[in-house]
């Protein structure tokens, strides 16, 4: 019989008497490539994966805590140099997973070191791994200061990691400040994709409204500064792609409420643009159509195809909200409901006249 994690209980009993020193010695041997007893199965030579599996298989006990502490102490004593890159990577991975209290200082030391120590492909990754591990310990004032302050020569990956940490800990305002320094660094398709991944996560974690507001606020700056035109395009693509997955009628409602006075001037074109770029396979995930007639009439037809009929209530509130706004146009509720019926099953409507 084996545990869920593939270890036989009698095998795990072999570690029962292990304390901090024994774990240190045992791990040290494995790090040196010596298969110390009790032997674990290092599949395809991946030591980190094997150690994490062992840690997960152990029940919460002093032995398990000692295991994590041993990893932290070995990390603390490892030379920070490319010659120790493999060892550092294993130890950071283990500490990041187990998060022993004693590991925080070692991780902080790594994060705080001058980037010059982390040049070369593998060492750059190690600094990112350490930064990510620091985020897993929580956002204390020290880390908050570190991730919000612009580090000299910080790379896009570094800034994205800072953004992710702030999002994870619900620090939206600071995250958007970091986003300001990320956008100019986004210059190609790969970096746009990297930004999209983090924005998708932020949309899921923080909600879409904050992101929409941020995009609305930054749009003019990105449009008018020629040097940012390229970055602005990449940012816009990444943002719409991120919103595509998470935007809901509730978000739109909250968003519309934030901009009652600028509905027609700013919000409508913005949403129209958003609609245009979120078309997937010719079908909108959600859409707003604008039909101008000879009279000063603007029809906004919100087609929330991804929403169920119950969302019609939300759409009504949205319409209601628009009708009460200081909008030069009047809101035709009857016509809007008739439109809604016409598009029933896939559409909710609002008509602004």
């Amino acid at each position, binding site marked *: 019989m*084996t545990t*869920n*994690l*593939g*270890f036989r209980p009698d095998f795990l009993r072999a570690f029962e008497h292990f304390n901090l020193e024994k774990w240190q010695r045992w791990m040290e041997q494995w790090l040196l*490539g010596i*298969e110390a007893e009790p032997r674990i*199965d*290092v*599949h*395809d*030579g*991946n*030591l*980190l*994966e094997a150690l*994490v*599996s062992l840690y*997960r*298989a152990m029940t919460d006990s002093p032995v398990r805590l000692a295991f994590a502490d041993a990893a932290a102490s070995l990390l603390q004593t490892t030379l920070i140099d490319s010659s120790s890159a*493999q060892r550092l990577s294993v130890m950071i*991975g283990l500490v*990041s*997973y187990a998060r022993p209290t004693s590991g925080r200082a070692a991780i902080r030391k790594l994060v705080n070191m001058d980037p010059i120590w982390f040049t070369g*492909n*593998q060492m750059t*990754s190690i*600094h*990112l*791994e*350490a*930064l*990510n*591990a620091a985020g*897993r310990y929580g956002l204390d004032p020290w880390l908050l200061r570190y991730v919000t302050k612009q580090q000299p020569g910080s790379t896009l*990956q570094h800034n*994205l*990691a800072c953004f*992710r940490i702030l999002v994870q800990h619900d620090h939206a305002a600071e995250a958007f400040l970091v986003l300001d320094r990320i956008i100019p660094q986004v210059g190609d*398709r*790969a970096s746009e*994709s*990297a930004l*999209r*991944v*983090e924005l*998708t*996560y932020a949309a*899921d974690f923080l909600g879409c409204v904050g992101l929409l507001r941020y995009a609305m606020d930054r749009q003019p700056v990105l449009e008018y500064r020629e040097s940012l035109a390229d970055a602005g395009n990449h940012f816009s693509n990444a943002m719409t792609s991120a919103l595509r*997955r998470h935007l809901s009628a509730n978000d739109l409602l909250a968003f519309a409420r934030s901009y009652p006075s600028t509905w027609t001037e700013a919000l409508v074109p913005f949403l129209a643009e958003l609609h245009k770029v979120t078309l997937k396979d010719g079908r909108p995930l959600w859409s707003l159509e604008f039909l101008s007639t000879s009279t000063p009439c603007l029809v906004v037809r919100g087609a929330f195809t991804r929403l169920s009929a119950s969302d019609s209530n939300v759409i009504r509130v949205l319409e209601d909200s628009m009708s009460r706004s200081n909008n030069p146009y009047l809101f035709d509720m009857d016509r809007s409901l008739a439109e809604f019926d016409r598009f029933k099953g896939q559409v909710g409507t609002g008509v602004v006249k």
Partner: protein
Amino acid sequence: MSTLEIAEGEEFIWGEVWSYLLSTLANLSEGGKQKLRALAMTPKGKLCATCLAIDLRSGAIRTQEVSEIFENVRGDDVCSGIAKALSEEKYDNLICCSLLESPVPKANDAYVTVMEIATFIYKFVRPNTGEGFAPEEVKKILDTYFDDEGDLSALIKCDLQPSGRLWVLPRSEYSDLLERANRGKSARVFLDALGLTLKSGHGVNGLPFLVAILHPEGHDCGAKQPTSWDVWWANTHIQFISFRRVDGWGRTFSCTGMRYFESNDEGMPRERVHRDSHSLSGFTGRIIGGSPPVEPVSQDEVFRAALKRFAKAWPRRAEGDDNRDDQSRLQA
């Protein structure tokens, strides 16, 4: 055919494997010969010897390479010694370097890599973002990289260490397995067919959770038919058998020994291996799903299946000879 007859037949083929290796590696020093003899002591060692014999006979690896590795094996455990020797930088040129021709697959049959989510994170996500495989990180990674689009373009760096290689299968066979997996609502079919003997993973409750990376059409990562040098022989259990020269593809050996493709030689999915640390720009990610581990057949059974493959592995003399050889060997 009775069990005894099969056993006798196997004994005979093992004898052939052994004499073939001894004659081919006649130039080994006494120390090297000792290491070679030590292989015959365990089922895993016998499997290793048989795979080497298949590769040598098919012309996939050179005699000189085998001799050199055996001269460099240290320690009592020869299989682990081979793994360690192969991980030395000087033998880097042996990884994914089968001498058999491996033509690039047709445009509509591009490569697919299937792996456990932790391997994906370790090789592709960690070098780019520093993220690890704690449960909340795994969830975030699945949500952001494996959505409907599965756009993996953000992953520009890749770290294939420590194994230094990735295994691929053709898209057509991936699709077939996926269909079966969808029918059975489980990724078990992938674990079994591809011979993935994972005991645990990073899915719910520590179960293996598989994802697939779909290569863009026409992408050439220089994948080759796998040889004995592409196996991490230090693993406790080996679910690999070399395959003779046929079409530039190897064949997996399923965990349960079940055949999956009757039209295919050996009935197992085709496989190749590559060492190209490419960016994932243009690649697509797909979730396959989780499954309890599949208990593999014993190492003895894998060894027996390897003997059958050896029996079919004859040096090719001319086009079409393979089939004739197969038939005559089977009749014999």
